[in-house]
């Protein structure tokens, strides 16, 4: 069963939510936001598609299994602690690239804390969507059993 309005709205909101989640992720080091909240926002985008269209469509859009996304996120987070080891500083010491200016965005600082946040972002998306997808499968089997 598809609701027309929800279906159409989810198409529009999906890219908007994803972009918003990326913005929230990026500004998170110094301002409210970060990987966790960004990840939740991105997960809502997929869940919205799942509700408005179908969970299969949401899985297609994700392109990668949530579990693998979670694993990759953990890997990214661990690896983000490594660059400092190269210059002999302790694990997870922040390393920053020199800041540069971009049109529209302004001054950009890139560094390992951002990479760590990207890892968290991926873990949260993976976790939230893995839970949602498994719960939805459970719910559908129960509905089918009920109808039989």
């Amino acid at each position, binding site marked *: 069963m598809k609701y027309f309005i929800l279906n159409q709205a989810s198409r529009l909101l999906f890219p908007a939510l994803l972009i918003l989640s990326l913005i929230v992720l990026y500004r998170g080091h110094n301002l409210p936001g970060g990987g966790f909240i960004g990840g939740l926002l991105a997960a809502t985008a997929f869940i919205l598609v799942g509700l408005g269209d179908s969970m299969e469509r949401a899985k297609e859009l994700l392109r990668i299994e949530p579990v693998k996304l979670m694993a990759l996120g953990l890997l990214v987070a661990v690896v983000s602690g490594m660059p400092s080891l190269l210059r002999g500083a*302790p694990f997870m010491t922040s390393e920053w690239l020199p800041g540069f200016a971009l049109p529209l965005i302004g001054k950009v600082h890139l560094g390992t804390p951002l990479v760590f946040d990207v890892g968290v972002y991926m873990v949260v998306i993976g976790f939230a969507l893995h839970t949602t997808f498994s719960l939805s499968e459970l719910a559908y089997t129960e509905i089918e059993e009920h109808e039989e």
Partner: protein
Amino acid sequence: MNEYSLLLTLLLPLVGAVCLLLGHRSLALQRAGGIVFSSVTFALSLYLVYVVDQAEFVVIQVGDWQAPFGISLVADRFSAIMVAVSSFMGAAVALYALAEIDEARLKKFFFPLYLILLFGVNGAFLTGDLFNLYVWFEIMLIASFVLISMGGEKGELEGGLKYVCLNLLSSVMFLAGAGIIYGKTGTLNMADLAHNLSVAEDVNWVISSSMLLLVSFGLKAGIFPFFFWLPASYHTPPSAVSAVFAGLLTKVGVYALFRSYTLMFVPIFPEVQPLILVLAILTMVTGVFGAASHFDMRRILSFHIVSQIGYMILGLAFMTPLALAAAIFYLVHHIIVKTNLFLVSGVVIRLKGSCDLAKVGGLCRSAPWLAFLFFIPAFSLGGIPPLSGFWAKFALVKSGIEIESWWSVAAALLVGVLTLYSMTKIWGEAFWKQQPEGVGAGPLPNPVGRLSYMVAPIAVLAISTVAIGLFGEPLFNYAERAAAQLLSPHEYISAVLQPNTEVLP
């Protein structure tokens, strides 16, 4: 270089879990990866023990945030040996799991969770920060929650529910205790906390929050009167899971108790000592009587975890160099032996379809090698010379005699005899007597993997028990050096805080 050995030992299980999650479709990869990563972790942890023994302390200030502001990872001799023994069990049980964990469980991410469990356990041993210890506990618990209830059978779910609820409560106690301590002292770094409390004028307020931590760690360690969840849940999951729980998880609680009372709460220890002593004696006695009243192999073994935990806590309560060394030696011995006994119970289930002593028998004739492999850890647990358990008990009793704590010595000896009674009960029923007519279930249908995968780790653990018994002196000397470190907390404090103790006005 030293820091790398600590870091690699800690992170490798996590990296392993990530790799196995990425390749979760291939069950062959799961099996191979589980073994490879846990074995390499074990090898690294041995190197860590070597490094720590040379350097006394290995400290990492994560993120270059100097203690007490950042999180410190600290390895001293005690935590290094704990990491090594638990990684040893990790590798042995991973091999055993090949023959016991079925496809359904492998598909539910058994090995990734198993590696995350080891990750959490090692992290708990290596952290130097109270709140970080809470986080490691939670990592370990989340993995263990899923592992214990993974099969989805009635017993597993029921046992899992009890396990989960009690451990959640214990975490809450921990959080509350840590919160109050932070509110009062303004620090969570264990070394800084110990320093602050040792120079504070009034430390009596700490008794209440240290009691919260005592309850929390006691729940996890299974000491009296908080042990009841343990025998109600440990016998439900597959033997590989119960073995690693029995060997490792309760010991993390014991480790945390040792860490608290030899480092942070040293100033109030004299007030708490009688309580810990009484709890230790009651833990030993209730555990062993519980075991005596049972007739199922795994339930008996579960109750023996409780009674053996009492011995270790007794070593903490004595707080003499010999007693602490004996307790550390006891921990090592007990992790190996208890894991091994649970693994043996898994083989009994596989051969006989049950480990209820009323339904099995005749194993001495049908599987003499298994009888031999049971005999060694069982009688080591009972404290028969020259096996490892004898030396552990001997050193502990000797330290008790030295400080003339006659009641605890009497209890320790009595409990030793009763432990032997339980072990001979299992021996007589499962191995010696004839297979009872008409009640045996027969061997398990469709076993998962080759029996030799189960026997190999059991044999390796049995050999190490014998080796510790016959050539245990290097280990005991190491335990003495570790105990000396525990008894001089100022060394730990200065190792962690060394560069900038005077940052704050």
